[in-house]
């Protein structure tokens, strides 16, 4: 089959086409052809030809995250975006740039930097604009600036059948029509091909400073992060790094702004965090910044998303689940934004890795077993609940008053919360009318999302992938399947790579 010549329809549609080599395999699936269109039009012709031939297509940028997700169910043609590598327009006065999907982030940064501007995305591993969009990859700056979808203001895509479509535009403020860019951000190539994107830019700050600290206990690190976030220091990023269970926990806080402001805030923040935490202030990020577990290229990397107030609980559960599986992952990431990564090197027992994932999902995603509350109570970050008129801590004391109310143990439990509204030793979530009328008597406990955390395996060796669902439970999967069926009814775009086998 691999000896077959490239179909004539494909060579007619796209100038740069070659037979695939073993190095072109996508997570073990070997394609027949690699095509590198140079424009949206060429990509459209190529996808139309591929659709007519029933070929399964997997888009690829620089390939830095090609091992993410499930292996494709079918893979005939790898569509390389690196031929579309033009910065189409940098409207510096408008703080907007339009770029083709194959432009590398580092090259874009150089172009924008010449005008004192930047795309405020710093995902570990860099990659192309299209790849970063398709994987929704983000780094430390996500705390302030969000993920690619938050900075994307316009997009051009080619659908599976070759139809070219755009949404949004090149103005930041725009609510005309559906935002197809949001849909494609993080879609892993399963809905179509991203060929061009327009982003909102930000000025490069005049000054940056990084305040770092080391803590003996995770709970101290959590406390410091919370203090920093509640302070006027206004960090744009707050990273945590905890390489092994026995290591000290490092935190780093990035400050940006004008020269005088950053200097003053760095001093104030250091004072706030205390004297005995191995504090340092530096103009450059620490070596572990934005890297650590998230950047590990092989082995297994998990992304854990959670409500930021649960940081202490999540850290404790990660360590507990790992310990139960005799594993010791590196843990770290943009903790204050509610994202952590846990990385295990290649060569671990697949069964142990799968058990780690399953236990962790059970612990943080779908309610905690009632008895785990005692073991973890020290590390759990409580939440302040109050209603208008009720006594509450004045803002100045916010950081210190956490231990007054304890978060319910069963928070987020799927069925448990509903049948046991107050939880084991927890408190009822307050409910009040916006007019102040107390409606706590009504049984509304457990309202909110079915889970307040999620565990996604970004990438894992195939032996692990065979044992766990990489994406875990996904709410609204039926709607997602319906969306996939509308955009790619023949199922030729990166089939099987995504959540729920999409």
């Amino acid at each position, binding site marked *: 089959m691999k000896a077959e010549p490239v179909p004539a329809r494909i060579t007619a549609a796209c100038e740069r086409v070659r037979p695939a080599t073993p190095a072109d395999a996508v997570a073990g699936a070997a394609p027949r052809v690699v095509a590198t269109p140079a424009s949206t039009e060429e990509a459209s012709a190529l996808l139309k030809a591929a659709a007519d031939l029933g070929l399964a297509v997997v888009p690829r940028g620089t390939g830095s995250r090609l091992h993410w997700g499930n292996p494709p169910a079918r893979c005939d043609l790898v569509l390389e975006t690196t031929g579309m590598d033009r910065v189409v327009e940098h409207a510096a006065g408008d703080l907007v740039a339009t770029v083709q999907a194959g432009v590398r982030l580092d090259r874009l940064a150089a172009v924008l930097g010449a005008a*004192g501007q930047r795309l405020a995305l710093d995902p570990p591993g860099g990659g192309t604009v299209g790849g970063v969009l398709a994987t929704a990859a983000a780094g430390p700056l996500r705390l302030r600036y969000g993920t690619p979808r938050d900075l994307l203001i316009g997009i051009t895509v080619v659908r599976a059948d070759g139809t070219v479509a*755009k949404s949004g535009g090149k103005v930041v403020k725009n609510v*005309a029509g559906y935002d197809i860019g*949001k849909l494609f951000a993080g879609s892993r190539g399963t809905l179509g091909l991203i060929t061009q994107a327009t982003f909102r830019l930000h000025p490069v700050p*005049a000054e940056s400073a990084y305040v770092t600290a080391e803590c003996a206990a995770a709970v101290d690190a959590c406390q410091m992060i919370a203090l920093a976030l509640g302070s006027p*220091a206004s960090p744009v990023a707050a990273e945590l790094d905890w390489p092994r269970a026995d290591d000290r926990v490092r935190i780093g806080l990035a400050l940006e702004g004008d020269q005088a402001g*950053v200097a003053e805030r760095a001093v104030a923040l250091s004072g706030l965090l205390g004297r005995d935490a191995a504090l340092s202030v530096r103009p450059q990020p620490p070596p572990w910044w934005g890297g650590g577990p998230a950047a590990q290229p092989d082995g297994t990397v998990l992304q854990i998303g959670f*409500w930021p107030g649960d940081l202490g609980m999540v850290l404790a559960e990660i360590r507990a689940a790992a310990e139960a599986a005799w594993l010791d992952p590196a843990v770290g990431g943009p903790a204050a934004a509610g994202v952590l990564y846990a990385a295990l090197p290649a060569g671990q027992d697949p069964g142990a890795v799968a058990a780690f994932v399953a236990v962790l999902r059970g612990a943080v995603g779908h309610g905690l077993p009632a008895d785990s509350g005692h073991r973890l109570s020290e590390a759990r970050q409580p939440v302040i609940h109050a209603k208008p008129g009720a006594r*509450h801590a004045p803002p100045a004391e916010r950081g210190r008053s956490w231990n007054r109310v304890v978060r319910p143990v069963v928070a987020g439990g799927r069925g448990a919360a509903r049948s046991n509204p107050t939880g084991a030793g927890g408190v009822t979530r307050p409910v009040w009318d916006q007019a102040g009328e107390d409606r706590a008597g009504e049984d509304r406990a457990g309202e909110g999302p079915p889970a307040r955390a999620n565990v996604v395996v970004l990438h894992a060796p195939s032996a692990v992938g065979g044992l766990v669902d990489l994406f875990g439970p996904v709410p609204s999967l039926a709607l997602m399947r319906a969306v996939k069926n*509308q955009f790619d009814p023949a199922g030729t775009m990166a089939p099987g790579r995504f959540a729920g086998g999409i």
Partner: protein
Amino acid sequence: MTEQPPAPGRVSAGTGQDPGPATALAGLIPRLAEICGPDTVITDPMELRTYECDGLTAHRCSPGVVVLPDTAAQVAAVVRACAGARVPFVARGSGTGLSGGALPRADGVLIVTARMRRIIEVDAASRRAIVEPGVTNLAVSKAAQPFGLFYAPDPSSQQICSVGGNVAENSGGAHCLKHGFTVHHVTGLEIVTPGGELTWLGDGTGAAPGYDLLGAFTGSEGTLGIVTKIVVRLTPIPQAVTTLLAAFETTGHGGAAVSAIIGAGILPAAIEMMDALSIEAAEAAVRCRYPEGAGAVLIVELDGPETDVHGETAAVRGLCERAGAFEIRAAADPAERAAIWTGRRSAFAAVGRISPAYIVQDGVVPRTALPEVLDRISALSAQAGIRVANVFHAGDGNLHPLVLFDDSSPEQSAAAEELSGAILDECIAHGGSITGEHGVGVDKSRYMSRMFTADDLDTMQLLRCAFDPAGLCNPGKVFPTPRMCGEVPGVRRGPHPLVASGQAESF
């Protein structure tokens, strides 16, 4: 909720015994009363007229029936009943929308979320709150305030507009230049799908697995389902806020100041501009005492850490002076700040003082194209003999030209309408948008094909077909031509002029 509803979303292809819209609706009313209680179903024609339009009064239609559910389960049951009877339904929050997005259907059910006003949770440590859709925008900030937090999107109607409506419209506000829109501040939505199922989009984390349906739903103008709970992100209240008012002789000078500020790498929370005519109107209405003889005023608000704001304020002052500002006022306390904002906030209503009628237009251009587009607007205005007052969010190029006319004259009304459309054409020609924050609704659907190709619109409607194959959820909004949602794999059907719901097959 005891009745077994038809399987959600399953609409059979057979259309033989469709009872007709009026009969279908009449048959549905007892069921609605059963679900929500008789007191919450409105059928009296006089009472129904209260709901005939939203903030855009040019489009009116009395709903077939109004229902005011109290819970998400009730909303779901109402939608299931509608889907089963193939009756269209429209959701409405506070009715402050400016594009007719909540315009009811005479043959349909209007689902009003006004009774769903519970603030379910404020999680200060996570900087999140869970609210019901009828909660007003400002109420969220008030609930968060004791914890030093606020809800950043602040549309000018924030005292009365609902968060559910904000989600439908992806509302912005004066401060979205720095703080972003609703879509940047919502991390989870509980919705009722057009088939009547309750489900969550996103889990509140901001990092949920799967497609970003949350992002795609936000701003879909009520066409993909009805929001029943919202997880919002809360933001720390900035340590310092300074508001500057700078007066210039012309909007050109004001525009130059805006360019200089952005060029200096400063990102204010808001940059607003008003031209001479809108200043005159505001002066007549609220005596805002803006500097005399100003051809344009610029309001620049800076927020953030104190030292940074001090530094930026000094820089902005200097830049405004260099651009020709003849008077600059600074406000540091809330009262002074309110005084500066009074004129701006009253601007829309104020033009009512100087004109019998007016159209509030909402268009966007790249910020650097503002001077050119303003010149074009005054040329168009002179040509048509119709006055235009300009109020705009200068920082992001969002124009609100107020087209002033006498509605007792049919010629003037027609000329105003035409001028208003011509302004949108200018926006499109400069690479902008037909709406920055008011939405498309019924009002602008006819302009959509000027901004987007048929393929663009067809692609957007694939999303609609995935959510609402039967086309019952707020039909007739956003898109000029509804798309048929054929299900045959690999076969694409072109846009069809009819929403023949009976022919649609669900997922």
